[in-house]
């Protein structure tokens, strides 16, 4: 048995695949590659593939991290090469490494994720920078969790780790690092709600694209990539 950790991209039209679709696509690509997956026991054996943090439909990513268990010994470079030949360019594995099969589950370790929000034309860099700075100076940022308003709003300020404005080829972007995982989690679309609620993003500016760029685990008080 060997456990291989991969980092793959999910770009273009494939952003519209659900988490389950991605699992299936990866499993079938591995089966086609001829590598031998490890399966769970029981009536409905399933391949031992686990993605670190499910991504909402519609968001692209360059940092989908998954652990895959194989029967027997297998080198990460072989996984990368053979599985990539069965996947489209937008779903390529960019990195693969060995993980101790007894290591804790990837999902339990994820603490944060970085996202890039690309804004539609019309936003002003200066306003955006000021807006984000003022936002981060607040102790409390309230997010209404339900549409109906029957739940208490939650303070999501502690879940925002980093927030800044950047510019790429005339396109204004917001770079965000958000708490992610089982313990604390802020979804990227919830951050947009907060930005709108606190008037950092005006109604006439839309978010043209969201891309996840990094998943992070906590090691010795520091956030680092799991691979």
């Amino acid at each position: 048995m060997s456990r291989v950790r991969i980092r793959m991209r999910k770009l273009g039209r494939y952003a519209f695949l659900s988490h389950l679709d991605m699992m299936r696509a990866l499993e079938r690509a591995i089966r086609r590659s001829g590598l031998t997956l490890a399966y769970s026991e029981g009536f409905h054996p399933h391949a031992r593939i686990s993605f670190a943090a499910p991504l909402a439909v519609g968001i692209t990513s360059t940092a989908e991290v998954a652990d895959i268990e194989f029967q027997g010994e297998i080198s990460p470079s072989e996984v990368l090469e053979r599985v990539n030949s069965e996947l489209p360019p937008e779903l390529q594995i960019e990195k693969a490494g060995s993980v101790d099969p007894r290591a804790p589950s990837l999902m339990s370790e994820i603490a944060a994720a970085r996202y890039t929000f690309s804004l539609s034309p019309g936003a002003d860099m200066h306003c955006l920078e000021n807006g984000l700075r003022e936002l981060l100076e607040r102790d409390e940022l309230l997010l209404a969790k339900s549409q109906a308003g029957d739940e208490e709003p939650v303070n999501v300020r502690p879940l925002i780790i980093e927030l800044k404005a950047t510019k790429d080829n005339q396109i204004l972007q917001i770079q965000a690092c958000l708490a992610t995982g089982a313990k604390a989690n802020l979804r990227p679309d919830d951050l947009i709600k907060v930005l709108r609620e606190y008037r950092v993003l005006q109604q006439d500016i839309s978010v043209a694209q969201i891309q996840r760029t990094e998943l992070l685990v906590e090691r010795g008080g520091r956030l680092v990539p799991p691979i």
Partner: protein
Amino acid sequence: MRLGTDLERKILNDLLPYVKKPGRYIGGEHNSVHKPWDSVRTHFLFAFPDVYDVGMSYLGLRILYHLINQRDDALCERTFAPWPDMESLMRHHGVPLYSLESFTSAASFDIIGFTLQYELNYTNVLNMLDLAGIPIRSSDRNETHPLIIAGGPAVYNPEPMADFIDAFVVGDGEEVIHEILDVVSENRRSTDRLTLLRYLAKIEGIYVPRFYRIQYSGLSVSGFSADPGAPERIVPRRVKDLENVSFPDKVIVPLVETVHDRAMVELFRGCTRGCRFCQAGMVYRPVRERKPETVRDQAISQLEATGYDEVSLMSLSSADYSAIEPLINLLLQECGRRQVAVSLPSLRVDSFSIDLANRLQELRRSGITFAPEAGTQRMRDIINKNVTEEDLMEAIGAAFANGWTTVKLYFMIGLPFETDDDVRGIAELAHKVIDRGRQVIRESGGNPGRARVNVTVASFVPKPHTPFQWVKQDSRQEFRRKIDLLRRSIRSRAIKLSWNDPDISLLEAALSRGDRRVGKVIEAAWSSGCRFDGWDELFEPEKWWRAFEACGLDPEQIGCAERDVDAVLPWDHISTGVSKSFLLAEFRRAERGEVTPDCRFSRCTGCGVCPSLGVSTVLSSGGDAHV
């Protein structure tokens, strides 16, 4: 006008973020074929008039896609009916119906081929043409529009769709598709549309409705004439030997989950069990089997090319495959070590089938389904379903003994010559099944309280080209009365009953037995917003009944009325190879409660298909079948 990448960008950015299940509309699947547009002469768009998840489960699509793309001079791309949320965004943004491979507008193709699997998809065909910007009526189209053709089981009565389809293709598609492509490739750019259709009408199995003049009197045909050069009677295409046609291995692997998301191999085509209500059992005759070694090789190469973990053994009745045991032995050797499950989609009602299912599905045990079709022996003899109560009880006993705890039973109500005793017989049989199940579970030390029986009753629809094509269909009131009678006859809470909407059954009957006049009803229903009529949540019967009324037609008359056995029926000019005199003789035998054995295991029944189509039964193991 081809739009290609601009259209793709618009769909991805402006439409898909706002629809349910956007993965249906993106293409990009493994094994989808992307040929440069200008590298071929003829561009074929396979159009499935239902959602992607349904259409991608269809074996015929896999076969034709593969055959057309094997040609150097043609390409085949796919399109499906967009769900209403996607449709409204497409209309709002001016996005036409497009192909999933190259995001090319449907109107840019040379041929659009629809498959008509089910009458309740008809409004979707009109809607897809309209979304493509193509006139829905054949007579309004010109040389700039693609040729619109249609195949599939519903074309055995093409008349209701005759106004909308340029040419129907009747029978097996594997050989005729090449003849169509040859003619279109040679003539599409050099001749006018009418001449091209004349050429196509000369191909055996092709029906070009505009070359026929049909008059009706009541429900019967009173006058019929074919233009010179168009055949009086359409002879269906039938592949003589399936070993001679290629079968796809590199099938498209969908990214979103589909209804039948697995590899499929076809054991045989046709069925001669002779159930008198069953259209498929009449129109695909005779039985033509593939060799078990061929099936095994096809299964393995398909599994390797797709990465699927399940392969389904397809046919109309897979336990009837004469080499089923050798095949399963071959497959189990290969599949066990590959973590592949083998599934048998259609089980016969007998313990032999349970043994097979038991060997195949050891690890995946959910419900098991049987179709006794009728509740009493008298009724089963009338419909020629050669199953006895003893067979059923034996099968049920074997199923429960092997660990299944839920059994699904399929029945029909409204069958010809049915009495209330036959309806109550369904409930009685279900009670016997639950009793037997509990007994078997108790004997094997389990908890008898776990036994469950799910009874599904479908409303019988008298289909064209069957021995019951002349009989009446029950009215909606009568169906409701019988369902109520059945509900009141079920006493056990371990038995769950479900049934079809009688409105859907009436519409299905009116569309499948209709004539050319029904076309304007379909158009009116579509104009009033009908789509996806086979989907309970979208079916709007009132719109349909208003459409019939507006056209001066009565759905109950067309769908339910008994037909005169001496009359010319609206579908009589389409042959299935089975003679009308055989169908009538079978109807008379049904009246007398006489059964007719399967010609695979007994003598020829004289249905006429072998002499009229020049075919014969092909059994892979020389007639050594399990009866």
